């Protein structure tokens, strides 16, 4: 059988172009392996060959995610790869986001297996672990050798379509995707053993971690609130009168974003609620009761806050309908970050 054709993605640093000062390096493609690619190639022996390497600066990628993903995809495709490897990115956040994003896109769009590697706390892990296999690595490039030792065999398995074992066996971060398999012992026996361990205070591993309770560590406090840009987000369904974007009254399938530049008060003539889950009379009379634009404007003028963000975000539904809310919030969060918002006041009914 012919060798597996591999394309490798790395950033400007591992591409030996430069450090942070070169983070705006534009994407380029080179034949063969570059930097850490050499160690991968050695590990593949004659089973696979790195036919091309794509390099992009971390900042450049993250500032142009959509356009860059497209451009990189085209570059990668010209090598006609059977397998795609990105990174490893260790604990480098922007590099991790780039690796995850490209690997996931390659897998989806080109339909070939893709793999990346990161430190478990890299923000790229949470964003992409369900979309692409991410090998768990150490937090710095000192763990390169160890990372390649885990990544190379898993990459080959993926390329050959061999069954992938458990996260513990293969060294990847659990994907959150539930996959059936046969255990050695039946469920009741596993239950009895788990109970005995729990009773003795020994460590045990639940087979299904409860999902609703993944906590996010509190973000650090705002040092100087009088300088902060604060955005308003609400699940109380406040919308311009007439609900121009047709936000559903319940189980909303979308959110909307409205410009409040120059608006000091939400009046009954201009704003109302689209929420179908509570008595709308009070919010329709004065939407500031749900979305306190009036007070935040005053606070802005009084210098109590830096300023109120130009847009507010709104949807309906309440706290527990996690499914959609999660989707909206991820999109909202992305915009808030790129708009330089420092803090958010989220109001719910």
């Amino acid at each position, binding site marked *: 059988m012919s060798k597996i054709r591999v394309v490798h993605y790395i950033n400007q640093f591992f591409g030996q172009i430069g450090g942070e000062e070169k983070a705006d390096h534009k994407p380029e493609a080179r034949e063969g392996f570059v930097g850490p690619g050499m160690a991968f190639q050695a590990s593949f022996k004659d089973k696979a060959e790195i036919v091309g390497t794509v390099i992009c600066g971390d900042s450049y990628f993250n500032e142009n995610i959509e356009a860059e993903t497209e451009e990189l995809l085209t570059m990668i495709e010209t090598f006609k790869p059977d397998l795609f490897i990105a990174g490893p990115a260790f604990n480098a956040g922007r590099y991790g986001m780039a690796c995850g994003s490209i690997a996931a896109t390659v897998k989806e769009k080109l339909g070939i297996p893709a793999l990346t590697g990161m430190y478990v706390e890299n923000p790229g892990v949470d964003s992409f672990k369900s979309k692409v296999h991410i090998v768990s690595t150490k937090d710095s490039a000192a763990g390169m050798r160890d990372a390649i030792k885990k990544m190379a065999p898993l990459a080959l398995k993926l390329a050959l379509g061999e069954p992938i074992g458990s996260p513990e066996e293969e060294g990847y971060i659990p994907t959150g995707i539930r996959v059936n398999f046969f255990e050695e012992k039946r469920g009741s026996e596993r239950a009895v053993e788990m109970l005995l361990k729990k009773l003795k205070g020994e460590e045990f591993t639940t087979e299904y971690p409860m999902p609703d309770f993944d906590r996010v560590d*509190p973000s650090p406090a705002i040092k100087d609130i009088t300088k902060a840009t604060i955005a308003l987000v609400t699940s109380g369904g406040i919308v311009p009168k007439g609900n121009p974007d047709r936000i559903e009254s319940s189980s909303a399938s979308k959110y909307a974003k409205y410009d409040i530049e120059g608006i000091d008060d939400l009046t009954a003539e201009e704003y109302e609620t689209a929420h179908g889950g509570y008595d709308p009379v009070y919010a329709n009379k*004065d939407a500031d009761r749900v979305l306190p634009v009036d007070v935040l404007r*005053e606070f802005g003028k009084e210098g109590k806050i830096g300023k109120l963000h130009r847009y507010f975000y709104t949807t309906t539904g309440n706290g*527990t309908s996690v499914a959609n809310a999660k989707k909206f919030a991820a999109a909202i969060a992305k915009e808030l970050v790129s708009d330089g918002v*420092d803090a*958010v006041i989220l*109001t719910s009914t």
Partner: protein
Amino acid sequence: MVKEIERAGIPVVHICTVVPISQTVGANRIVPAIAIPHPLGDPSQPADKEKEIRRKLIDKALQALSTEISEQTVFE
């Protein structure tokens, strides 16, 4: 909703009426609101009094955003 925004590194204060729900969804900074149909208002009060109530709540929210916390905290 709260979690995703906070995950992106932006501190969020959740002003909401039903504190247990806020706790369940994983908000870290929580300020209890007035009532479901008017979380930041009280229609039974005259307009200026109502505004004052809202200002106090926002003050509390800003204070929450300025406070370092290590776990879920309700700012009563």
